[in-house]
């Protein structure tokens, strides 16, 4: 093949053309560049990984038997559900609050702007654990709450001790904390949308609410999603902080168990592996949601991992 093409070239190019490459070049054998250091580093890293895996399997300290015994244990699974509930409720309330705060911050009303800015400043400044303890002790500050005319007579009274249970305090703390971060994420997404988009929508006379939902939000989602997913993962792990309020979520429950049986490492691994699994599930969800909002942003959507797998199998079958 190469010989034929070299002969063709010889025929095509007159030998007296000074610009032409030597015609016999096409017939030479190509020796690829070698990369010995790639092999060396790959080998070193692989050996280290093998050592680590070997340690995981052979070190009795990991105690995989206890790990296996507790991974699906009833109290652990119940605690896992509490962790999930806290995460979902915290995320929903947090992002609802965040959307409201972002809208306030971007509004033309200077009072709303200032309140939103101050909220974000305060709630980002206070560590979550400190805030949770505040909410748990709200009864010391305000014994009762009442609904009524501001500075005037009240209609309903609540005892704060009954209103804010420890679970309520945890949820309140997580949601308020989350709202401050979510506000910034949503705001980042909204200001990332080209100003021309809103101008075009305004020039077409599209109503304000529709401008937001149909034009602004779908485009803002592209910028919002990666940070929001990041924040969601963060929240999932932050729920472990509420153990200070003695709520039976995953991390608290694990501590209860190893407080009883003294098997600290395997039980910490139970919690760790569950957090990893939940984060993995969130990451998969994130991939598909991001793909949905990429419509129109890319000329063609890349295939999903599943589609890639099927394409490989089809190519293999055809061979």
């Amino acid at each position: 093949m190469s010989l034929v093409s070299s002969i063709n070239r010889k025929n095509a190019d007159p030998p007296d053309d000074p610009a032409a490459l030597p015609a016999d070049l096409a017939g030479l054998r190509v020796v690829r560049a070698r990369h010995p250091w790639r092999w060396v580093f790959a080998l070193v890293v692989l050996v280290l990984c093998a050592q680590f895996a070997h340690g995981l399997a052979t070190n009795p300290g990991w105690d995989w038997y206890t790990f296996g015994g507790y991974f699906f244990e009833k109290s652990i699974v119940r605690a896992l559900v509490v962790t999930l509930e806290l995460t979902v409720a915290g995320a929903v309330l947090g992002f609802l609050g965040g959307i409201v705060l972002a809208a306030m911050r971007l509004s033309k009303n200077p009072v709303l702007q200032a309140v939103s800015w101050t909220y974000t400043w305060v709630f980002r400044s206070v560590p979550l654990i400190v805030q949770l303890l505040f909410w748990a002790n709200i009864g010391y500050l305000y014994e009762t709450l009442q609904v009524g005319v501001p500075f005037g007579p009240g209609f309903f009274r609540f005892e704060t001790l009954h209103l804010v249970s420890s679970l309520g305090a945890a949820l309140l703390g997580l949601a308020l904390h989350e709202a401050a971060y979510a506000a910034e994420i949503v705001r980042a997404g909204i200001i990332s949308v080209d100003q021309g988009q809103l101008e075009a929508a305004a020039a077409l006379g599209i109503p304000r609410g529709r401008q937001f939902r149909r034009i602004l939000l779908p485009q803002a989602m592209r910028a919002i999603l990666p940070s929001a997913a990041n924040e969601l993962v963060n929240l999932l792990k932050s729920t472990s902080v509420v153990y200070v309020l003695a709520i039976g979520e995953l991390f608290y429950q694990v501590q209860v168990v190893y407080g009883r049986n003294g098997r600290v490492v395997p039980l910490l691994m139970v919690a760790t592996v569950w957090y990893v699994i939940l984060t993995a599930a969130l990451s998969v969800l994130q991939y598909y949601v991001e793909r949905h909002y990429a419509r129109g942003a890319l000329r063609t959507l890349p295939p999903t991992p599943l589609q890639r797998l099927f394409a490989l199998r089809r190519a293999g079958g055809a061979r």
Partner: protein
Amino acid sequence: MSRPMVEVRGLHKSFGTHEVLCGVDLTVEAGGVTVVIGPSGSGKSTLLRSINRLERTERGYVSVDGEIIGYRRSGDRLHELSERHVLRQRAGIGFVFQNFNLFPHLTALENVAEAPISAQRRPRAEVHAEALALLHRVGLGDKAGAYPRQLSGGQQQRVAIARALALRPKLLLFDEPTSALDPELVGEVLDVMRDLATAGTTMIVVTHEIGFAREVADTIVFLDEGLVVEQGPPDRLLDRPEHDRTRAFLSKVLS
């Protein structure tokens, strides 16, 4: 004689301390094509954007088809309208942007159909049929399902024109519609605009395409430093301008 389509009276607009429009007066008759030319920074785009109140002005007023834009008159007072009412007024005025501003997450058809459905509350099926017909009219009947990024600049601008037409506007405003296009794509957009002009659509076009202005315009308006310097039919304004500033500008763009 019928009333003019657009009347601009004593329009002033500043950005900070810089005065962009310094008392513009302009009258545009229904059914005509008015081309606005002038050096960059002369206020052409600001004038156009003030007509549908994308830009709020400090003094002066604009009326379109007898309706004052941005205000409601009661007795001897002008009440500023809320954004909601301004949006309603804008739906009668089509606007085509220099950089298209198509909605990238919607297909060509959805771009065209969006405003008639949401701003004019017309039935979806009827709007879709009409949107498809409009895409055919601008030569893009086969691109209804394409997203803007899958289209060339010229095709995107033609979709943008179809989108403006979908509102059945009484007036079309073009803000340098070919300035963001590669030279070989300018012609296809000007062809569509030429068709619209022939069909008797009232148009105000800000452009640097002097050839197009000469061929299509009924009136050319020369704007400089925020004021209308002179206006007239193309052959008079382009070939026998009365003002030195017009002559100086034309000698630069026609050379």
